[in-house]
């Protein structure tokens, strides 16, 4: 237990230290040192608890509970004041409603509820801790170099150096995130949940431009709305079921599945807002104004995973049998389809990544909603693969942006020549996002099988069409990167060493995870699923198929190592209708004038316009949420009527 508490508190202490240190050297040392400690500690935790089925710790709750309440009250006041200052009244209202609600609950009902264990660690938490501890700290290390360039740019505009604040929030967030995935007490989880929301708010608004502030508030408002759902869920859970423990809730769910679906629906709603599902996806897109490490850490690999983590946790009480499950899976499925479609029309690399994140989270949410062992297997696999690959892609785009001065995909012409190492990392990342033997397709296999088994035809439609669209937008980007544009010189000499180190480490992780996923499956996922679901009903990739996948990855890796770019054939100019001037980029136009050609991809605005896709997705998802939550509230009211 000590290790867990250490992992929660240590990053927070480091955070305060970073807030005080103003010079680059000291910050570098502390961040790298703390990162090594956190990563090592998370591996220790993994080894320590991997063999056990799930360890619950009582941890003296009283004092901690009060401290949390005080902090929470303070945060509530802070949010109210800030939002009032910026005249964001929605944020004000959401904050002023939910915190008193939790306070009231804690003081009136909370005391009567016996909490056996406040913290716990099971294999799912281990996976999350590993992601936070390794990927999270890698991103923090990357941020060192990135933020130097970023600040350099800010200096030109005479902006103050706010990097201590940036790293403070990053590390505060890491601690809160570990707390979130190890809380068994829902009130504790709620506390960490709010801290992550605030971290996101602070980091999105980091540059303090008008756009950043507005987007930060949008994120805050939507997350507070989710927090409100969370608070309502806690109140219902505590009032009706007399417990605020997650484990108890799941236990009750095995007997009273229909009833437990009521608070579950509200928790799922909170998860849906956090995971930026439609209609709440606009906050994640707005969040792309933040510095790239923020997008990598909070908005793709960890914080948004808190939402899906919650839903995956709830999976046993969701499913086709109740409205909470159907609501969740449909919102996830619809978001997957329409967010993928919207990604086609995007030219901004970060927005493509954002839409892809939303889509993948949608798939995980849908998996959680389906709630079978197979679906959860696929969902957890997605969490792992997505965390690694997507952070790699974000960090690559961040570096590319600082060197080619643009984050537009169309400006990445010739990146393969300009920045060969970076482009290769990016290509591997993209391959990891959609190509067969690499990570995501393994999970997509699982998704498809479990969706079909669930019998939800609409969900099958979502994944069939969504997968085709996903391949489309990744491939056209990958094509852009692989194109060898003659005459471009390498400009890769001044990339920060920390950045390169992180890229390479993540690439190694991507490949390793693809090669070792059968081991992960059998040592972490399968035991977890057996404990949670009391056995596996199929839907998990057979060992033969896993072997084939691994062989394919091995073949590609080996061929790449030994054959990539090696050829004895003479190189000849490309065909330009006989008018190639010889440099492969210009041709003789009319009057023998040399004309340079440029190649552009399809964005199919007419079919997959962002606005249209969002509109359709929003309408459908709102309908699902209204039906789902409405049904739950109606059930609750009729239940209460029965009691009274």
């Amino acid at each position, binding site marked *: 237990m000590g290790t867990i508490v250490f992992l929660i508190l240590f990053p927070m202490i480091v955070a305060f230290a970073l807030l005080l240190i103003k010079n680059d050297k000291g910050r570098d040392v502390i961040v790298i040192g703390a990162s090594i400690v956190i990563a090592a500690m998370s591996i220790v935790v993994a080894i320590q608890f991997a063999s056990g089925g799930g360890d619950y710790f009582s941890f003296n709750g009283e004092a901690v509970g009060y401290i949390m309440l005080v902090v929470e009250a303070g945060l509530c006041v802070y949010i109210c004041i800030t939002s009032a200052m910026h005249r964001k009244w929605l944020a004000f209202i959401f904050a002023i409603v939910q915190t008193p609600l939790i306070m009231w609950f804690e003081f009136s009902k909370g005391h009567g509820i016996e909490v056996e264990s406040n913290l716990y660690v099971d294999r799912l938490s281990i996976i999350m801790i590993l992601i936070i501890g390794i990927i999270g700290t890698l991103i923090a290390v990357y941020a060192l170099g990135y933020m130097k360039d970023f600040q350099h740019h800010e200096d030109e505009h005479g902006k103050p150096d706010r990097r201590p604040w940036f790293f403070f929030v990053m590390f505060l967030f890491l601690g809160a995130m570990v707390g979130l995935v190890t809380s068994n007490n829902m009130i504790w989880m709620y506390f960490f949940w709010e801290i992550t929301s605030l971290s996101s708010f602070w980091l999105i608004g980091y540059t303090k431009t008008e756009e950043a502030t507005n987007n930060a508030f949008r994120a805050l408002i939507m997350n507070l709305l989710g927090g409100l759902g969370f608070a309502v869920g806690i109140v219902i859970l505590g009032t009706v079921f007399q417990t605020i423990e997650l484990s108890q809730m799941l236990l009750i769910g095995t007997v009273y599945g229909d009833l437990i679906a009521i608070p579950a629906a509200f928790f799922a709603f909170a998860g849906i807002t956090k995971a930026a599902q439609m209609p709440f996806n606009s906050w994640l897109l707005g969040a792309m104004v933040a510095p790239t490490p923020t997008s990598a850490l909070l908005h793709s690999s960890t914080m948004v995973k808190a939402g899906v983590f919650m839903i995956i946790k709830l999976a046993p009480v969701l499913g086709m049998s109740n409205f909470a499950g159907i609501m969740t899976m449909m919102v996830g499925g619809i978001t997957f389809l329409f967010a993928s479609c919207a990604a086609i029309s995007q030219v901004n690399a970060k927005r493509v990544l954002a839409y892809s994140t939303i889509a993948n989270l949608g798939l995980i949410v849908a998996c959680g909603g389906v709630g079978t062992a197979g679906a959860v297997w696929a969902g957890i696999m997605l969490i792992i693969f997505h965390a690694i690959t997507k952070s790699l892609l974000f960090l690559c785009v961040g570096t590319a942006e600082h060197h080619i001065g643009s984050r537009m995909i169309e400006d990445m012409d010739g990146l393969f020549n300009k920045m060969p190492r970076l482009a290769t990392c990016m290509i591997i990342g993209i391959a990891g996002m959609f190509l067969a033997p690499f990570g995501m397709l393994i999970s997509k296999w699982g998704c498809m099988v479990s969706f079909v088994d669930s019998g939800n035809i609409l969900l099958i439609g979502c994944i069939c069409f969504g997968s085709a669209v996903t391949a489309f937008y990744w491939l056209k980007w990958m094509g852009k990167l692989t194109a060898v544009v003659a005459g471009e010189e390498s400009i890769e000499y001044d990339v920060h060493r920390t950045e390169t180190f992180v890229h390479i480490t993540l690439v190694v992780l991507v490949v390793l995870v693809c090669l070792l996923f059968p081991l992960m499956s059998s040592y972490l996922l399968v035991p977890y699923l057996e404990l949670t679901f009391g056995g596996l009903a199929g839907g998990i990739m057979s060992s033969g198929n896993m072997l084939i996948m691994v062989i394919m990855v091995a073949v590609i890796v080996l061929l790449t190592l030994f054959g990539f770019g090696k050829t004895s054939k*003479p190189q*000849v*100019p490309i*065909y330009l*209708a*006989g*008018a*190639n001037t*010889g440099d492969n980029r210009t041709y*003789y136009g009319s009057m*023998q004038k040399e004309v340079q050609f440029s190649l552009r991809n399809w964005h199919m605005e007419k079919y997959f316009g962002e606005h249209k896709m969002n509109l359709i997705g929003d309408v459908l998802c709102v309908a699902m949420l209204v039906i789902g939550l409405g049904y739950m509230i109606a059930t609750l009211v009729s239940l209460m009527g029965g009691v009274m």
Partner: protein
Amino acid sequence: MSAAYVTKSPWVVHYDGSSCNGCDIEVLACLTPMYDVERFGIINCGNPKHADVFLVTGSVNEQNKGIVKQIYDQMPEPKVVVAVGICACSGGIFKDCYNVMGGVDQVIPVDAYVPGCAARPEAIIDAVVKGLGVLQAKRDAMVAAGDAPAEAPAEEAAPEAAEEAVTEEKKTPAVPPIFTMAEIKVNTMDHLKK
């Protein structure tokens, strides 16, 4: 390499230079059911990188000489050039125009000449089929040279007119054009008589 596939699947790329388009249309006529060149495995593939036979109609001028040369260069060995029609052979009626350089052989080595204004489809087909002999000879030369290209891909800038054509001729492998213009004329006439 005993199996002589080069002669069984001559893919054609066709370029129309300075011409009245008469020969151009006769080349296309070869594809029609009437003549059906696909019988011989001939496909008009429109891409020098896939082609074995370069059909040029029309004469070469200052504007298109670079293009003719480049298309020729971009064809992988073994390859054959067929000049179709009198303009492609010698410049024909356009010979004395201020910008016309003359026949195709002013820019690239030509292996077979098809006279006529316009050249008849039978004659064109005949020339292509006869040109297969050159293809085979070039392939044999390639095999003899250890599967290396019979002619090093020319990378130099497009040279000036006539002298260059002569040097090009010298550089090409020791396979002379199989027909002189007179011969092919006789052949064509025989063919027509049949």
